[in-house]
């Protein structure tokens, strides 16, 4: 009998070593504990915690969720207890998670991000920091940062100055040119990029004549946005050298592979956990199997390999575009 090598699924994102290339998306997975009855957290790479802000926030009025074709809209509005309470009451519990724990920081000013990032990164229970500069669901400037190259640069520089821990910057798809923003974030010191946050959207109740979300607009996630997210990863991968955490509508191993091939070094699973909590383990099993079938040693061997072009592409003489 031949002993089969188990393919290597580990990846490195900045200084963060992940046993599996699968993170659970911020805001979708609580602090991980909520899903422990259904999933073996030791078989995922890590959990990105719900975004935390400087002051406590009660979030948006309900309804905060609407189901849409192959996706959903959410407008939670960053409900969270604020960094002081969080540090005092919540963070200590994260030490017992059998996977990596990544803090997520949101804010309304450059200073907000710097303050929360510094305090959170100082804690041993937190293995890396994600900067959520792309939340579409807060009334004020929540998303402005990721929609403006200069603001992106300023907020990333300020956060970078506060910690040596791995800094992942989460980008918005709601921009004309995501590659330009990605380059700014890299230049300002980001260790990695999370691509992408939700796509802005809206649904209307045609009986009641009002928006279906309490916040009027929300963020679209799930399989509906996967083609948008895959392209964002593909474009960002061509613009920067730092690793990418791909996300947006990943449900199956095939979906996950699209992101790796587009250029992601790791992936993040959000909405699919709401459909079936077994998805993260199914994807990890599927990745192992895919690599074994193709006799590849590591998941790292497929990152960014979707650029082989077409055998059958034709060129006409005289065709202009």
């Amino acid at each position, binding site marked *: 009998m031949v002993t089969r090598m188990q393919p290597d699924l580990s990846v490195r994102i900045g200084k963060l070593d992940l046993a599996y290339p699968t993170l659970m998306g911020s805001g*979708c997975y609580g602090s991980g504990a909520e899903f422990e*009855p259904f999933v073996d957290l030791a078989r995922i790479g890590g959990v990105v915690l719900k975004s935390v802000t400087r002051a406590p926030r009660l979030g948006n009025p309900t309804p905060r969720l609407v189901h849409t074709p192959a996706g959903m809209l959410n407008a939670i509005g960053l409900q969270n207890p604020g960094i002081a309470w969080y540090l005092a009451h919540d963070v200590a519990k994260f030490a017992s998670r059998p996977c990596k724990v990544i803090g997520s920081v949101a804010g309304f000013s450059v200073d907000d991000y710097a303050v929360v990032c510094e305090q959170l990164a100082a804690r041993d229970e937190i293995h890396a920091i994600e900067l959520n500069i792309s939340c579409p669901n807060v009334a004020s400037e929540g998303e402005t940062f990721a929609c403006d190259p200069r603001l992106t640069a300023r907020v990333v520089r300020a956060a970078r100055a506060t910690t040596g821990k791995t800094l992942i910057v989460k980008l918005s798809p709601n921009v004309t040119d995501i590659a330009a923003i990605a380059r700014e974030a890299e230049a300002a010191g980001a260790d990695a990029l999370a691509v992408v946050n939700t796509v802005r959207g809206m649904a209307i109740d045609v009986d009641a004549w009002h928006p279906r979300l309490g916040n009027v607009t929300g963020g679209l996630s*799930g399989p509906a946005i996967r083609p948008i997210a895959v392209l964002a990863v593909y474009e960002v991968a061509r613009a920067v050298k730092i690793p990418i955490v791909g996300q947006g509508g990943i449900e199956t191993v095939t979906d996950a592979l699209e992101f790796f091939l587009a250029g992601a070094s790791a992936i993040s699973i959000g*909405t699919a956990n709401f*459909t079936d*909590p077994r998805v993260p383990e199914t994807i990890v099993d599927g990745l192992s199997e895919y690599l074994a079938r193709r006799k590849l040693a590591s998941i790292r061997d497929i990152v960014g390999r979707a650029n082989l072009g077409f055998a059958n592409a034709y060129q006409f003489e005289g065709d202009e575009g």
Partner: protein
Amino acid sequence: MPTLSTGERVHVTKIVDRRTPAADVVVLGVRAPQLARFAKPGQFVMVVPPAGEVASVALGIYEAQGDRMSVLFFVSGKRTTELARLQEGDELTITGPLGNGFFLDDAPSEVGIVAGGVGVASVLTSAQELLKNGCRVQLYYGARTQERLVDMDLFARAGCEVHAATDDGSFGYRGVVTDLLARAARPPRLLLACGPSPMLRAVARVAAEIDIPAQLSLEETFACGVGGCWGCVVPIVRTSAQAPSFPPAVLGGSDVVNARVCKEGPVFWAHELRW
């Protein structure tokens, strides 16, 4: 692997019976021993939709006995339409039981249960438990028409006094079920209620008027169903035993926090809600 004394986990079940007690209302019974065993009255499950729809469907645990549990649902959108297509023998993946059920431990000897529409799905097990403990149980059951009053006989056979109301008067009292409740000759000493939000608000009003406590099983759009996404909140007074660990905010003069219907609920005391 996590070991769970609660039986909370993913159950791959098989449909063992299917019936349609009214147009667009479906009851699916599944073989799910762990679920049936650990389910408490008023808890719910998340049902993984077949055919690749996004997000599981939250459904109350209708019946739970021996190896079998069932759900009762109204065909209202894409996912319930898909569920309604399933036949005996098909597989169905269910997570649960989830949430806190009704608080029945110190229930008084006379309990009123108010059910509106498919809200009936979340109260049968409570009625059964209370009756088993020797309570007198009155069911106030409202629906649009007689055809939509499903499974009244199940409640009657279990030993409930059944009081029905229909919007069109085709059966029982003509009008809303809370009017019927307000006229009760002998009001119960505790109310349990599940139904559409306007009905629950009316139940809270009646309960306050006749000065009895009421437990309301709320409905919100869910995504995760397990407390992970904060999508399903309702403001409650901070002093509640169910309040999540959060700094309070002030609403209408009281300290409130947004509690998750799926995790801290779905059942809340009427007097705690600030909705």
